[in-house]
């Protein structure tokens, strides 16, 4: 038993899509009140791991503990109780397009609490204020910019005061200023509310700004589990290639491996 129990813990998690194995025995621990960044090249299993963590996919083997409950084989109605302990920020926001931003944030409160409308409205304002989006309360998601969508998504994830927040590529599709603003928001969640943040990302810039702990995935396996300093100092050739961006280029397109040039010349 360690001094502190992990908030999120994976033990030997295996997952495949049909015959295609994606995760090969992933294990790690995320400590409460810390930021964990899950890194890796595209197609390395980051997003799959995140979906396993928040219960959208079930692993074939292994244990996924959220605040002490193993959700890997939990029945759906019990999983729903665990789901109230965390919030998820999706890559595209995934706000309901038919509702305004405020209604989106009110939705989990209306569904899971017996609070009256006035209280819910007040809580929605607080959440919007936390992500600095009060002025956009009555807008539809389609009228928001990319950065605002992601912040609105965080506000909705905060609705039920979760202990854990999952972020799927928070910086994707954002300009550098919006990216740094989202990164600040992630740090603010940890510092002001002690939330455990699990962030899937592939940009080193953001990792430098937010990570307390880094998990580097490579082809469904854990390549590195340590601090940002470990990541930057590692002499492992694949880690070095990830740092310089080669791992992405090489496996992102698969051009050379699949005889692309030969096909072109034929």
């Amino acid at each position, binding site marked *: 038993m360690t001094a502190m129990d992990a908030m999120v813990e994976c033990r030997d998690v295996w997952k495949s899509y049909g015959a295609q194995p994606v995760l090969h025995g992933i294990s790690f621990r995320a400590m409460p009140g810390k930021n964990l960044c899950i890194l890796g090249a595209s197609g390395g299993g980051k997003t799959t791991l995140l*979906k396993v963590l*928040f*219960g*959208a996919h079930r692993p074939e083997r292994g244990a996924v503990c959220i605040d002490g409950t193993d959700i890997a084989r939990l029945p759906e109605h019990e*999983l*729903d*109780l665990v*789901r*109230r302990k*965390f*919030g*998820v920020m*999706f*890559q*595209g926001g*995934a*706000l*309901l*397009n*038919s509702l305004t931003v405020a209604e989106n944030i009110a*939705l*989990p409160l*209306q*569904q*899971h609490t017996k609070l009256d409308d006035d209280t819910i409205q007040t809580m929605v304002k607080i959440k919007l204020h936390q992500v600095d989006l009060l002025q956009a309360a009555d807008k539809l998601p389609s009228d928001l910019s990319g950065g605002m969508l992601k912040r609105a998504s965080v506000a*909705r994830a905060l609705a*039920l005061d979760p202990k854990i927040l999952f972020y799927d590529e928070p910086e994707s599709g954002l300009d550098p200023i919006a990216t740094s603003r989202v990164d600040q928001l992630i740090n603010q969640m940890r510092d002001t509310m002690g939330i455990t943040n699990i962030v899937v990302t592939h940009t080193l810039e953001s990792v430098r700004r937010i990570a307390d702990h880094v998990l580097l995935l490579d082809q469904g396996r854990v390549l590195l589990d340590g601090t940002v300093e470990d990541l930057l100092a590692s002499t492992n050739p694949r880690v070095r290639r990830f740092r310089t961006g080669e791992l992405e280029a090489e496996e992102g397109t698969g051009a050379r491996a699949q005889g692309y040039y030969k096909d072109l010349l034929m």
Partner: protein
Amino acid sequence: MNPFVRVAGAVGRGTILLYRALRDFLHHVSNLCRLFGSTLWFLTVGAAQGRTRMGKQIFPMMRNVGVRSLPVVALITFLTGAILVLQTGDVMKKYGQLQQVPGMVALSVVRALGPLMTAIIMTARVGASFTAVLGSMRINEEIMALEAMAIHPTGYLVAPRLLSMLVMVPCLAVFSYLLGMAGGWLVALAVYDIDTDSYIQTSILYLDMTAIVFGLVKSVVFAVLITMICCYYGLIAEGGPMGLGRNIMVAVVVSIVMLVVAEALLAAVMVNWLLSK
């Protein structure tokens, strides 16, 4: 190649295709039944336990499903009644049965054409939009976001749609009865000089409670078929805009085929029941 081998190969391939088609069909049917079961659960037990919270979306949805469909349902069923008289009037006249025309219109509209035409219009107007909305929600990860918030998509999205259809389709069917007969009356009056009083008298003479109730039962069955098939194909959409477009097409085609099959089966049941009386 030996012709025998070629024939054997073709038969083999055909058998495999048939097997796959059958397997896919059973897969979809069993998933649809499961979806229907869980929707019913959310509408009954879930609602009683306070776990189904449809919130404020139910009344706007009923307005969209019902009230806004009324003009098109009214137009089409009115014209259906008119066409019925236009196309059969001369034959009826030839056999000296012109005075029976109102009865024929009333029975056709109430027993079959009213509910069926209404259901086909609802498939195109409302069913297709169910598939489109749920499908794009699925593709935009909104469905996954609902699940991550412990909000069951069946309870939040499918149950209110089924409830509005269950309430509104029979209401629209009643309108279709009245408008179908009104369409017949207009042509009967204008073309065949049947006066209004005897038109109404004959219609009432032919109609009985059985026909009306059977028509309404049918429209309830149609409402369930349209909602479940269209929502199901929305919830399983994948593959971006192309996949979504394909699923909307499949949902509308499957719904209309199932409506006509159900109409045939229910008509057979009704005739059997009437003959056994």
